[in-house]
C-alpha cells in the first residue's frame, strides 16, 4: 500500500498547510490602522467649503484642518460613529457624502427596489391572469370598451400615417377618421356609463403595478441619463426617433410625440386622444406641453381627471390658489378622484394651510381599493405626518 501511504501523507501536509495559513491570517490580521480609519472617515465626509469633494479629496486648507480634527479624535479613542456624529452636530447631515438610509432618504434606496418589485408583481400578475378564465361580466365589458377606444385611437393614427405616406387620399382619410372618431366617442361614452367596479380587477391592478414600475424606472433612467454626456444632436432623454416601417401597423407606443401631435392637430375634437398625449408629456415631465393639451381637454370635456392634472400643474406653475380651485372642482365632479385627493392634500400640507384639512382627503384616498401597495404606503405615511403636524 505505498500508494495509499503517499496519499495520506499528502493529505496531512495539505491539512497542516491550511492550519498554518489560517493561524497566520488570524495572527497578522490587525485592526485597520489609525491612518486607515482617518482616510476612510475623510472620504465619507463632505468638505464644507468645496461641497462636491470629500475631505480626503479636497486640497483646500480647511480640508486639511478637518482631517487634523479627525486624526486627533481617532487618536483620542473616538469610534467612527463618534467622529461622524461630531461633524453632523456641527454641519448637519449635509456633511455625509452617503445619505443615511432613514427618513426621506429611504426613498433614494427604495425607488429602484420598488421599481423591481412592481415589475415582478406585474409579471406574477400576468401569469396568474393568463390562467384566469372568466372575469366578471362588467369587467369584460370594460376591458372590451377600453380596447375598442384604444383601437379607434390607433386607427386614427394609422390613417394619418398612411395618408402621409401617400397610401390614402385625403378624402378617404377624412372618411375613415370620422368613422374612427365616432367609434372612439361611442366607446368612451359607454365606458362612462359603466358602473365603477367594486374591486379592482387583476388587469387593472396589473396596469397599476406596471405603471408604478415604469415610473420608478423612468426616474432611475432619468438619473442615469442625466449623468451621461448628451450625444451630439441627441435629446436629453436619449431620444429615440421612431418611424413606422412601411406596410406594418404602427403600434401607438412606437408613435413619436411629434406624430401623435400631428394626429391630435388633425383631429382636435377627440378628447381621449389628446388626454393620452397629455399623459405622455406628463410622464416625460414636459409640463408645459401637457398643460396646453389639458386646457383644451378641459374645454371639450371637463372631466375630474383633466381638472386634477390641470390643478396640479397650475399649482406647480406658481398659481397655488388657482390650482387649488381646479383641484376642488375636480373633487366636486368626482369626490373619489384619486389624483385630486392626493394633489389637494399635498397642496394643503405645503401652503401652510391647516394640516388637519389634508387628513380627511388622505383618509378618503386610503379607502380607494384601486390603490397599489406602494401607493398606499406612501399615502399612509403622508397621512401619518399630516396627523402629527395637525396635533
Amino acid at each position: 500500500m505505498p500508494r495509499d501511504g503517499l496519499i495520506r501523507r499528502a493529505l496531512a501536509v495539505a491539512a497542516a498547510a491550511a492550519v498554518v495559513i489560517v493561524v497566520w491570517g488570524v495572527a497578522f490580521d490587525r485592526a485597520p490602522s489609525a491612518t486607515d480609519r482617518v482616510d476612510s472617515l475623510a472620504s465619507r465626509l463632505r468638505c464644507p467649503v468645496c461641497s462636491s469633494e470629500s475631505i480626503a479629496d479636497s486640497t483646500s486648507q480647511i480640508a486639511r484642518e478637518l482631517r487634523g480634527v479627525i486624526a486627533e479624535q481617532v487618536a483620542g479613542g473616538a469610534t467612527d460613529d463618534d467622529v461622524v456624529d461630531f461633524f453632523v452636530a456641527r454641519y448637519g447631515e449635509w456633511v455625509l457624502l452617503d445619505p443615511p438610509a432613514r427618513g426621506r432618504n429611504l426613498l433614494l434606496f427604495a425607488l429602484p427596489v420598488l421599481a423591481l418589485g412592481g415589475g415582478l408583481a406585474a409579471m406574477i400578475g400576468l401569469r396568474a391572469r393568463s390562467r384566469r378564465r372568466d372575469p366578471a361580466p362588467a369587467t369584460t365589458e370594460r376591458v372590451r370598451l377600453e380596447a375598442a377606444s384604444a383601437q379607434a385611437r390607433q386607427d386614427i393614427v394609422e390613417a394619418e400615417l398612411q395618408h402621409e405616406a401617400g397610401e390614402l387620399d385625403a378624402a378617404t382619410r377624412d372618411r375613415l377618421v370620422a368613422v374612427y372618431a365616432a367609434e372612439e366617442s361611442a366607446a368612451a361614452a359607454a365606458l362612462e356609463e359603466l358602473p365603477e367596479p367594486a374591486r379592482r380587477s387583476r388587469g387593472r391592478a396589473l396596469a397599476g403595478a406596471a405603471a408604478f414600475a415604469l415610473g420608478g424606472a423612468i426616474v432611475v433612467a432619468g438619473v442615469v441619463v442625466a449623468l451621461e454626456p448628451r450625444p451630439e444632436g441627441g435629446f436629453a432623454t436619449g431620444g429615440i426617433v421612431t418611424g413606422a416601417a412601411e406596410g406594418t401597423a404602427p403600434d401607438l407606443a412606437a408613435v413619436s410625440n411629434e406624430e401623435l401631435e400631428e394626429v391630435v392637430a388633425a383631429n382636435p375634437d377627440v378628447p381621449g386622444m389628446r388626454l393620452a398625449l397629455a399623459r405622455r408629456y406628463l410622464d416625460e415631465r414636459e409640463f408645459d406641453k401637457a398643460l396646453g393639451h389639458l386646457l383644451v381637454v378641459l374645454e371639450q370635456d371637463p372631466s375630474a381627471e383633466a381638472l386634477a392634472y390641470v390643478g396640479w400643474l397650475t399649482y406647480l406653475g406658481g398659481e397655488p390658489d388657482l390650482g387649488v380651485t381646479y383641484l376642488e372642482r375636480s373633487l366636486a365632479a368626482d369626490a373619489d378622484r384619486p389624483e385630486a385627493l392626493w394633489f389637494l392634500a399635498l397642496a394643503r400640507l405645503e401652503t401652510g394651510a391647516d394640516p388637519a384639512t389634508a387628513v380627511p382627503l388622505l383618509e378618503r384616498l386610503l379607502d380607494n381599493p384601486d390603490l397599489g401597495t406602494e401607493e398606499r404606503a406612501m399615502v399612509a405615511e403622508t397621512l401619518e405626518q399630516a396627523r402629527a403636524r395637525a396635533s
Partner: protein
Amino acid sequence: MLGGLFVAAVVLGVVLWSRFGADPNLVSSPLIGRPVPAVTLPYLEGPGELALADQDGEILVVNFWASWCVPCRSEHAHLVAAAETYRDLGVRFVGVVYQDSPEAAAGFLDELGSGYDHLVDERSRAAIEFGVFGIPETFFVGRDGTVVGNVRGEVDTGLLARALDTILAGGDVGSIESGPVQGTPD
C-alpha cells in the same frame, strides 16, 4: 384611473414635501438651540484672549470673515454701524478671522475700520465648531449663552436690526440665507 401619473405625482409630492422639511442643501444650522461652542481665541490686535462661552448676560454677535472675502468687504460697514447702535443695549460684536493671515486681516481693518474686537482662529477650530460652510457667516448668541440664529451670506443694517430686536425681545432668529458665501480665497 391610477397610472404613471400617480407615480409622477408621488415623486413631485415628495419633492414638494421636502420643501417644508429639511432641504439637504440649505440645512438650518444644527447649532441653533445649543450652547455656544466653548472656544477661546486670541485677539487679533492686542494681547489676551476671549472665551466665547464666558459672556455674562450679553448678547453676542459672532461674524466670520476674511480679507479675501468679497461680500465681507461690503457688509463690514453695516456690522460696525450695528455694533455701535446696539452696544448700549448689551450686544457685543466680535469678528473671527477665517483662513487668513493676521497681517492681511489687520490691513483690512486698517482700511475699513475695526469697530469692535476681532479674534484669530489659527487652525480654524472655531469655524469647525460653528460648522461654517463659507464666509461671511454670522451667529447670534442669546443672553443665556444659547445660539439663537445665524445668517449665511452678507448682512446689512436692516437684517441685523431685525435679528437683534427679535433677540432683545426674547425671540429666536433661526437660520437665514442672505446670499452667496465664499469658501476659499480663490
